[in-house]
């Protein structure tokens, strides 16, 4: 590569030398500066998925209910009654690492516009957040900023934040993860797409004016963070939720009037990506005059206008007869609406400024021409060490210690109540939130039907770190069980793959394994992937985040009145486990117990038993239909005893305790079983349920039919969580008041420490 100057502008823009050569070759000439900038943003990892595209192709994407799969602004799934749900998750990690408030706020703005672009009204938000330990000052700053950014932007929009999760661990200290999920509802006929059809149709931009903010934001999001990252603060955009609210209403009105041929969010890479993608999908071209774009700053050139990531803007493709109507609706809502170009049959994106052609690039080359990389994958060294976990390496506590362990786990920020966070979010607006934040999944009614939509986000990065394939399969399985414990059927997922640099063979191996695990689980559980996002380069000075493939899942509850909730309902009800609790040393792998109590992140977590999970889902959905279950709660962080404690915390008055004897789990005779693993072990494919004694035959028959082991372990009774041995000796008893207190105060205590 001789002759390329050290200060080559494409390098500063994030393009590699060979990518620049490829651009020259395919274009048949040197690109000019504006064109180079356009390539740099669209060929960035963030926009082009250069390292992940071939892996993503292995994910199952088809299903009877899938109306729109990956490739559009968001996936769309049929929910019956001529209604559909558009949903997607997306990351805003890099901006949030340097400017947490605006990073998180504009993350919400972007995902909401993606849902809007499908023609749906956005109706729910969920946030999947990862931070360093709460006693670390930097993590605390990022946490505070992100949470207030979500509140500041989301509350103003009138879209309830109904759920999500937060997980704290050291590897996220410098690279927080901020993944935001939005779901929307529409009638089938309201479906819109980001496609620039119809030569002669008008290209319009609606919403905020364009400024110099966020130029090269997506290039920034495609690189590792370093000591210079602070200087990238100007790459972060500034959000205006009021403008977004007006934009939502105006666009929905324009679409309802049939005035919109195609619509696309101007997110990453702004006008460049929205123009190139809409034209590429339709096989057309566009001619744009940047001088017609409403600008908020003087003297912006074509390069700046094309690359600006100013927020709250949408690109519209409108037939000439409807331009007037679109303008008048925009005026009603006080928004800028401008004609900036036309659809052509040139197959090119042509950009003019003051009559001068500033760029002319084939849209297919811009939007789909980036190279794909399959880098070297190598099993990480660390796994050799972490996989070593034998019974001797973890001291087995005596029963008297178990009380403190349970309280410690309930108070651990990863398990404790997240109310200090979600009380800052409006989770009730729209008056459809039937089961809100604080539970495994949120249940939202669909007015005018009996149905409920169920939403959850899940991923335990610690498990993925220790076993990328199994951990990713767990993310899908846990999401599916979280949906199923409400009595709903899991329908489909969206994913956000958060990893370090794919150019590191060990990280790439994590990514590859995780995608495989996710694919297998989605296949087995019949939950296709309808879209999502990949966020790589989440690392600072060689320290990467835990591999974190977050799953956002949609489920459907046919009769919302028959939903199941996590809290015990009646004293005397039978408490039982559906599925299998291993109770051996291996089940301590990657557990919260192992880290919080023994200070270890180790082990080789088992993969989920996908057949069993499928059976459990059938049992729960059928059982819900027949009204068998009083409560259901899946086993995740903290294992069986924490799941039981949570069913007590969420219980109806008078049903707040339980007495269990785990001998009934059928592991009594096995040598490798240990009490701490039985009570706190994880990676069990299992759910705790309660039901009235008079339906126990029905429940047993249902479980037999689906091949699901059913173990009655105790009763809803007293106001303690108590464990008894085979001989009936009570070895552990924790009053509910202490359980509830530890759970309620855990997060705030950790943040004040």
């Amino acid at each position, binding site marked *: 590569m001789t002759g390329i100057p050290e200060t080559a502008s494409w390098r500063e823009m994030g393009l590699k030398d060979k990518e620049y050569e490829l651009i020259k070759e395919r274009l048949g000439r040197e690109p000019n500066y504006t064109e180079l900038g356009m390539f740099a943003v669209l060929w960035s990892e963030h926009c082009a998925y250069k390292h992940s595209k071939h892996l993503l192709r292995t994910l199952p994407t088809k299903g009877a209910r899938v109306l729109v799969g990956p490739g559009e602004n968001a996936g769309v799934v049929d929910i019956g009654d001529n209604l559909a749900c558009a949903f997607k998750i997306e990351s805003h990690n890099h901006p949030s690492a340097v400017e947490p408030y605006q990073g998180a706020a504009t993350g919400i703005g972007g995902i909401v516009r993606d849902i809007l672009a499908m023609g749906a009204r956005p109706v729910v938000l969920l946030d999947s957040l990862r931070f360093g330990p709460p006693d670390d000052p930097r993590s605390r700053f990022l946490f505070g900023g992100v949470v207030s950014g979500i509140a500041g932007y989301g509350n103003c*929009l009138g879209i309830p934040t109904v759920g999500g999760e937060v997980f704290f661990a050291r590897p996220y200290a410098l690279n927080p993860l901020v993944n935001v999920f939005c779901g929307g509802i529409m009638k089938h006929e309201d479906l819109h797409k980001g496609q620039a059809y119809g030569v002669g149709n008008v290209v319009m931009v609606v919403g905020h004016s364009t400024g110099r903010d966020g130029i090269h934001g997506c290039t920034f999001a495609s690189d590792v963070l370093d000591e210079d990252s602070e200087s990238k603060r100007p790459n972060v955009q500034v959000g205006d939720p009021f403008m977004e*609210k007006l934009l939502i209403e105006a666009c929905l009105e324009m679409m309802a009037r049939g005035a919109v041929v195609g619509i696309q969010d101007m997110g990453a890479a702004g006008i460049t990506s929205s123009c190139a993608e809409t034209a590429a999908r339709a096989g057309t071209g566009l001619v744009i005059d940047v001088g017609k774009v409403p600008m908020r700053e003087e003297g912006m050139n074509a390069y700046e206008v094309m690359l600006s990531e100013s927020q709250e803007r949408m690109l519209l493709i409108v037939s000439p007869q409807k331009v007037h109507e679109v303008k008048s609706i925009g005026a009603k*809502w006080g928004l800028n609406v401008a004609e900036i170009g036309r659809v052509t049959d040139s197959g090119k994106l042509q950009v003019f400024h003051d009559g001068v052609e500033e760029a002319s690039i084939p849209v297919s080359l811009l939007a789909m021409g980036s190279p794909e990389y399959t880098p070297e994958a190598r099993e990480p060294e660390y796994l050799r060490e972490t996989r070593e976990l034998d019974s001797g390496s973890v001291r087995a506590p005596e029963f008297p210690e178990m009380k403190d362990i349970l309280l410690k786990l309930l108070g651990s920020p990863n398990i404790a109540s997240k109310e200090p966070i979600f009380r800052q*979010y409006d989770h009730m607006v729209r*008056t459809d*939130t*039937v089961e809100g934040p604080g539970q495994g999944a949120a249940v939202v009614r669909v*007015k005018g039907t009996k149905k409920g939509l169920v939403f959850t986000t899940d991923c335990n990065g610690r498990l993925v770190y220790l076993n990328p394939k199994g951990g990713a399969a767990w993310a899908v399985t846990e999401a599916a069980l979280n949906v199923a414990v409400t009595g709903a059927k899991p329908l489909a997922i969206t994913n956000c793959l958060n990893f370090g640099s794919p150019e590191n063979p060990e990280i790439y191996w994590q990514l590859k394994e995780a995608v495989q695990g996710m694919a297998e689980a989605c296949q087995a559980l019949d939950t296709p992937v309808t879209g999502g996002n990949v966020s790589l380069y989440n690392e600072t000075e060689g320290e990467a985040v835990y591999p974190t493939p977050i799953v956002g899942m949609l489920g459907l509850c046919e009769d919302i009145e028959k939903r199941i909730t996590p809290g015990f309902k009646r004293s005397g009800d039978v408490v039982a486990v559906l599925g299998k609790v291993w109770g051996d040393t291996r089940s301590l792998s990657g557990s919260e117990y192992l880290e919080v109590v023994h200070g270890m992140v180790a082990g080789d977590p088992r993969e989920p038993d996908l057949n069993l999970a499928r059976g459990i889902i059938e049992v729960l959905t059928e059982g819900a239909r027949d009204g068998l279950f009083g409560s259901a709660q899946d086993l995740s962080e903290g294992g069986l005893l924490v799941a039981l404690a949570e069913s007590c915390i969420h219980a109806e008055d008078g049903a707040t305790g339980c007495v269990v004897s785990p001998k009934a789990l059928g592991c009594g005779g096995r040598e490798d079983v240990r009490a701490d693993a039985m009570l706190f072990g994880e990676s069990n494919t299992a759910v705790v349920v309660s039901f009235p004694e008079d339906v126990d035959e029905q429940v047993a028959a249902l479980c037999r039919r689906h091949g699901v082991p059913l173990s009655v372990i105790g009763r809803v009774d007293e106001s303690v969580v108590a464990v008894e041995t085979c001989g009936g000796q009570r070895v552990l008893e924790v009053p509910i008041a202490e359980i509830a207190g530890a759970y309620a105060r855990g997060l705030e205590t950790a943040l004040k420490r």
Partner: protein
Amino acid sequence: MRFGVVVFPGSNCDTDAYHAIKDVAGVQCEHVWHTTTDLSGFDAIVLPGGFSYGDYLRCGALARFSPVMESLYGFVEKGRLVIGICNGFQVLLEAGLLPGAMLANDVLEFRCQWVNLKVENNKTPFTLLYDPGEVIRFPIAHGEGNYYAEPDVLDELERTGRVVLRYVDGSGRPTREANPNGAARNIAGIINEKGNVLGLMPHPERCAESILGGEDGRRVFLSMIKSLESGALASR
């Protein structure tokens, strides 16, 4: 009988109020665009919650200059009913239709949660279906609900029974812990002198159906309907 729910740019509880009035309480209801100047066809007007004009200045400070507000003064003058919920309450304060002002919550954070309220005055068109002193549960969702007024204004409100709702604990005591935002004297809702304009921070429209976790809020709308049926309509 016709209710109108005003839609300011940035209102976001407008459809919730509409649903509670039309689908739950079962009376006619329409959205009223903020530029409307003729309210003569309405018997009651709701100023809904949300973030009018983004609340970038002071909550409600811009909305009060909307054309619809001009007509609202006359509407109030005629004795018709106006209820301002959350942001709507803030607009009523800015418009001078109710006394006092809102400060940021003393916790300096937005709060979305259920609260207990005591019905301090059930002899209003908005509360006549509640028992005197009844403790009810409503959700709140605001960042600036810390009601403030000069002590003499507060005394006057108390003396004239114009404190309609107060934040209380489960047994009806107005404790510090039961006050979610630092509001003076735990005030959650007040009424004007004439008794036809109510402002409250909690959201009755969010608790009008049992599936949402409580239905104490429905009686606010049913009280308004009952009071309109029994007289106010005649003065139209």
